[in-house]
């Protein structure tokens, strides 16, 4: 099957680059990587066209693990959902690969960068193309691996190395649940194949499983375990802590992995498993609440961050929260729709910030990411500025742009979802205000006003080269137009193409409202977007001293937000340090060295001490031995005489 080439091409690029990159290819690495990923993109287009015509492919390539009744294949499923994901992954990857040629130019690990990036694309494609849960898990872990490599790409920086490790380990917590979920799926359904599992889902409805003495609904348990994985990978509360730190990686990595593709794997997975999730109200509500809470929680942190990439990172966490909110209220296609539009505008935001960092890097030979040291870049970097504006308009939900349609769909569906839905809708709207505020704050701090960095360097700042700006422009087009495939029926009949397209896999969302309500919801979201924009404009253009004042006025709240609710510190205090200390002082120094080794060395010591005492019996005097012999002989004879 030709489509196996979709993941294999990037894998090939990885193998060539990693084996020969260091000694032979060096700064030509992109010549191998870019065609490979572009080839994947073209093949994905073919696949997409095929799916549009209605041909869904589900093939097993070979049996991967066979053991008793356990049998899992390496196999691919290309249906509507996969096709969308393929398009998102390969198209954005291609753009980012091209962008990286410029961005990473001259870096000493250039070949390594492209190798890892290719490996990532391979893994991500396996993840989306898998036709069973274990292969999904394979891709899931493999993207985590690439994320580890790429976050720690500048491994000489301690913070980068730490961040990579943190990302991997935090994800492992999620995968712990995911893996158990996979096992439980097999034990419940006797297969890991999507088709078998989903078609059998109804039959296990109501089955329970004994978990530590409690009877738990099997489907709910499976869904919650799977969702654990999603929470880790998609950086939802409470496992979101790794994503902001992941910004230690090069910016293209942040754009590709930590905004557009990998972090959305959780969303993809939940959407993929929708036949299971739909059967468990508990699981659905959990997903929705976690999503909604994360959306607003991350948005509040983003309000006060100073690092340009961190702001966008928290924005990503927040937007992912929206997606889970959508999934949780049963609007799977809305979630996937938002995933798809988000990929464009968020990649654009990251790459735009990368362009800014790149420009400042050339000016200062140091990666400046602190927005307080920027400002007034508009006149030096017009292209970057304008794409930033487009992306911001899109993310804040200004009508007509991509973000508007997808976000509005989510809020509308949440609104329809009963009491809990109304509450979540409210959270979503509140998060939207904040989103508008911090997005515009970022633009004003970065591009407006005057340059606040080192004045000497100011004239070195210039627009990025074509290889960077062209992908930006293409993405900007996407950020505008990507949403036009999902126009809600209330605005234009029969224009929700993506919803219809995905319906065979994801089904139609439930719930109907009146047109009036729908218009109201739209109006509210537009209004809050504008309000947020105006407040930001007021605070950062008109009254530039106001933010300082507010910050000092609400010092505790500001500190709370600025320090990200101290969650990192909290985890460090209650998980990391106790485990490390316990393993060092209790397990190793006390239990292993004292107790076990104490027994192990104690027995010989005891025997040795006893022997030392016993040694004294051996006087060395012949007569003593003779006497002992005589007494022994007496005893033996005595036995004969008196005992018989």
């Amino acid at each position, binding site marked *: 099957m030709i489509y196996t080439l979709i993941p294999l091409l990037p894998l090939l690029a990885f193998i060539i680059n990693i084996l020969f990159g260091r000694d032979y290819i060096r700064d030509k690495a992109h010549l191998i990587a870019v065609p490979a990923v572009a080839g994947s993109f073209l093949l994905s287009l073919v696949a997409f066209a095929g799916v549009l015509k209605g041909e869904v492919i589900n093939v097993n390539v070979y049996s991967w693990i066979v053991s008793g009744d356990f049998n899992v294949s390496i196999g691919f499923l290309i249906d509507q959902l996969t096709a969308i994901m393929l398009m998102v992954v390969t198209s954005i990857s291609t753009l980012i690969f091209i962008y990286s040629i410029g961005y990473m130019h001259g870096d000493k690990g250039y070949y390594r960068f492209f190798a890892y990036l290719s490996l990532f694309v391979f893994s991500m494609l396996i993840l989306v193309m898998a036709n069973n849960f274990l292969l999904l898990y394979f891709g899931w872990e493999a993207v985590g691996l690439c994320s580890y490599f790429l976050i720690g790409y500048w491994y000489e920086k301690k913070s980068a190395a730490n961040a990579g490790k943190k990302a991997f380990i935090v994800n492992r917590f999620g995968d712990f649940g995911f893996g158990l979920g996979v096992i439980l799926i097999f034990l419940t359904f006797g297969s890991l194949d999507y088709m078998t599992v989903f078609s059998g889902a109804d039959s296990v409805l109501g089955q329970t499983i004994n978990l530590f003495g409690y009877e738990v609904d099997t489907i709910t348990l499976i869904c919650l375990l799977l969702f654990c994985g999603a929470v880790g990978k998609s950086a939802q509360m409470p496992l979101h802590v790794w994503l902001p730190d992941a910004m230690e990686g090069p910016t293209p990595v942040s754009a590709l992995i930590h905004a557009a593709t990998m972090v959305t794997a959780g969303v993809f997975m939940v959407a993929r498993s929708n036949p299971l999730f739909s059967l468990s109200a508990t699981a659905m509500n959990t997903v929705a609440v976690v999503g909604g809470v994360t959306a607003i929680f991350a948005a509040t942190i983003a309000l006060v961050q100073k690092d340009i990439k961190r702001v966008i990172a928290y924005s990503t966490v927040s937007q992912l929260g929206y997606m889970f909110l959508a999934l949780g209220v049963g609007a799977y296609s809305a979630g996937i729709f938002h995933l798809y539009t988000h990929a464009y505008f968020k990649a654009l935001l990251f790459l735009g910030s990368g362009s800014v960092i790149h420009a400042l890097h050339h000016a200062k030979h140091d990666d400046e990411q602190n927005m307080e040291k920027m400002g007034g870049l508009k006149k030096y970097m017009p292209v970057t500025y304008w794409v930033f504006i487009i992306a911001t308009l899109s993310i804040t939900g200004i009508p007509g742009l991509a973000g508007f349609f997808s976000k509005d769909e989510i809020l509308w569906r949440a609104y329809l979802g009963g009491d809990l839905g109304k509450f979540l809708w409210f959270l979503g709207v509140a998060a939207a205000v904040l989103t508008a505020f911090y997005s515009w704050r970022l633009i004003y701090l970065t591009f407006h006003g005057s340059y606040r960095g080192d004045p000497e360097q100011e004239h070195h700042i210039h627009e990025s080269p074509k290889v960077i700006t062209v992908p930006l422009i293409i993405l900007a087009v996407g950020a505008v137009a990507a949403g036009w495939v999902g126009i809600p029926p209330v605005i234009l009949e029969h224009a929700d193409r993506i919803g219809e397209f995905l319906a065979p896999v994801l089904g139609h969302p439930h719930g109907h409202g009146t047109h009036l309500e729908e218009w109201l919801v739209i109006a509210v979201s537009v209004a809050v977007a504008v309000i947020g924009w105006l407040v930001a404009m007021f605070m950062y253009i008109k009254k530039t001293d106001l933010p300082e004042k507010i910050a000092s006025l609400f010092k505790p709240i500001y500190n709370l937000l600025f320090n990200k609710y101290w969650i990192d510190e909290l985890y460090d205090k209650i998980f990391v340090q106790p485990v490390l200390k316990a393993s060092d002082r209790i397990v190793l120094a006390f239990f292993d060295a004292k107790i076990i080794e104490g027994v192990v060395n104690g027995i010989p010591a005891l025997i040795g001490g006893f022997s030392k005492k016993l040694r004294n019996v051996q006087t060395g005097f012949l*007569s003593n031995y003779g*006497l002992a012999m*005589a*007494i022994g002989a*007496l005893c033996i*004879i005595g036995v*004969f*005489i008196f005992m*018989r």
Partner: protein
Amino acid sequence: MSTAQFFFGYFAVMLTGLSVLVVTRKDPIHSVLWMLVLFVHIAGLYLFLNAEFLAAVQIIVYAGAILVLFLFVIMLLNLRNEERVKKFQTQWPLGAGAGALLAIFLCLIVGKVIVLAPLGRYSEDAVNGDGNLMAIGKILYTEYLFPFEVASLVLLVAIIGAVVLAKRRLE
């Protein structure tokens, strides 16, 4: 009391007394000399028991060879000064007690556990027909040939061992 019992009484008293003398003399040379007398009495007892060959061997080998070896060694070491120190160890009462107890035990056991084998074919008359020497020789070189050869080997080893041990150490 028959003649036999009388002779046995003589030998028993002499052997016991001589044994005491042997182990109590301060000077080892005296011990050895008393031992010589003891051996002669043992030889006599052997004759009494119709073991002429062994009586001869007792005199020739024990008295003639082994005791002389003892004498040589005592003289070689020139142990005159040993005479002045006390002759018993501190643990001598224990040793004596053990010995006495042993004697009592052994006497007690005699009637108790000894089960006699059936009589063999070498009755006094049968042996006297050919003579004791002939009888011993026949049985030694037929039935006990292998142990006899081994005994020769033991002696050889003893000779070599004694030479190696006693010779001056080569530095």
